[in-house]
């Protein structure tokens, strides 16, 4: 499962090239470190060892503890529809980690003093500032029925995560039935914490309307789901700047 992460720096203040390179290098290092600690593909990672019960909770690093805490929080908010402990093989926080890592890496660009930047980690998007003086970031959402087109465009002020039945990987599992199947075609969530948005999107992908109603009650998070029959629903504050078109 290859993941390409892109960082776009919007700035006309002419940062020195070297400074930008250093910032990008730090961002890369952040992702590399997260991969080393959290990757379930790496048998020697801390999370892999945790999954094999080779390491106790008291020996976990702060990063892993923080992520597990956030996952617990996400599980509560979604009433169990997001549940990294429900998967075979042990706890798997990947549904949260991708967004969380991308946002931390974006922080390296913030450290540069950037006024506009965007990170896209395999479709999870976090933004910093603005792309230009009077604009907001606008992010397209892939149309799940025709992936060369968009279903809509969203104004994003912090983060946008999308999950769908087109995803590979075993993370879209109904924690209550164990069935690995998305109940919607696409679920998108906007909010200040991209990791949480990622977790919510995962929960929406298996829980559909039921979870959408829970997200409605979570301050600062908005969501859109597109059903298999091409109908769609969004929370009241979901910042669409276009119509939703899934005619495919």
């Amino acid at each position: 499962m290859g993941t390409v992460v892109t960082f776009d720096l919007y700035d006309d203040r002419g940062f020195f090239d070297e400074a930008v390179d250093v910032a990008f290098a730090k961002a890369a290092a952040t992702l590399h470190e997260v991969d080393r600690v959290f990757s379930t593909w790496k048998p020697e990672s801390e999370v892999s060892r945790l999954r094999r019960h080779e390491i106790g909770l008291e020996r976990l690093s702060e990063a892993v503890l923080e992520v597990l805490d956030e996952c617990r929080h996400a599980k509560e908010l979604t009433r169990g529809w997001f549940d990294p402990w429900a998967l075979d093989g042990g706890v798997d926080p990947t549904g949260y980690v991708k967004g969380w890592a991308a946002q931390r890496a974006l922080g390296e660009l913030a450290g540069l003093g950037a006024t506009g930047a965007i990170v896209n980690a395999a479709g999870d998007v976090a933004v910093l500032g603005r792309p230009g003086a009077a604009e907001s970031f606008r992010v397209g959402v892939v149309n799940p029925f025709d992936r060369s087109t968009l279903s809509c465009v969203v104004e994003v002020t912090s983060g946008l995560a999308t999950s769908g039945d087109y995803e590979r990987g075993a993370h879209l599992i109904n924690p209550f039935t164990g069935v690995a199947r998305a109940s919607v075609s696409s679920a998108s969530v906007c909010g200040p914490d991209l990791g949480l948005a990622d977790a919510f999107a995962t929960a929406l992908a298996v829980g559909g309307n039921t979870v959408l109603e829970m997200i409605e009650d979570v301050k600062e998070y908005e969501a859109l789901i597109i059903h298999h029959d091409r109908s769609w629903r969004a929370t009241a504050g979901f910042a669409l700047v276009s119509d939703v078109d899934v005619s495919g």
Partner: protein
Amino acid sequence: MKRAFIVTTATVAGLAGVLAFHTQPANLSLTGLTGTTTPGGGTSTTTSTPTTTTSKPRTTTTTKSRTTTTGAGTGGAKSTTTVAPTTTAPTTTIATGTRSAVGELVNYNFGVLSVKVTVNGTKITNVTIASIQDGGNFRSQSIDQASIPILESEAIQAQSGTIQSVSGASYTSAGFQMSLQNALSKLGL
């Protein structure tokens, strides 16, 4: 706008994290985009030469563009990438030195492509598109690996006007990844 790419790859075959990092001018030349999926619309690949700064009407705020190599060494390799085999420990030793392999042709969104990977020992030094056919002409060219995911999103961006990013698309298309894995397995990695 300055753009950097970082690739993390964990293959189903069990390779641990591969990390590549290189910066690139924002102005990939992708002329002739119509945002459609017809092969004609995809011919933007023919003109893509990422190391030049060909202008393209992007609606983003574009700063100066430059090519920066971040890899060490004299080969001008842009990527610093490492491959660490996992503990399904191969009993055969991995050959040293520089070797390349081309993966099988696979389908991607607009046609078929194959990926060429170059390694030095267990270290990936380059990944390029070996061949790409988008419904019409078969041609070989060296396109930076990032171009294909960008192409997918560029077509989308052309369709939609001013957007800065796309959510919901895994930036590495499954086909690209499959061919890359195939090439790596040919090298015993």
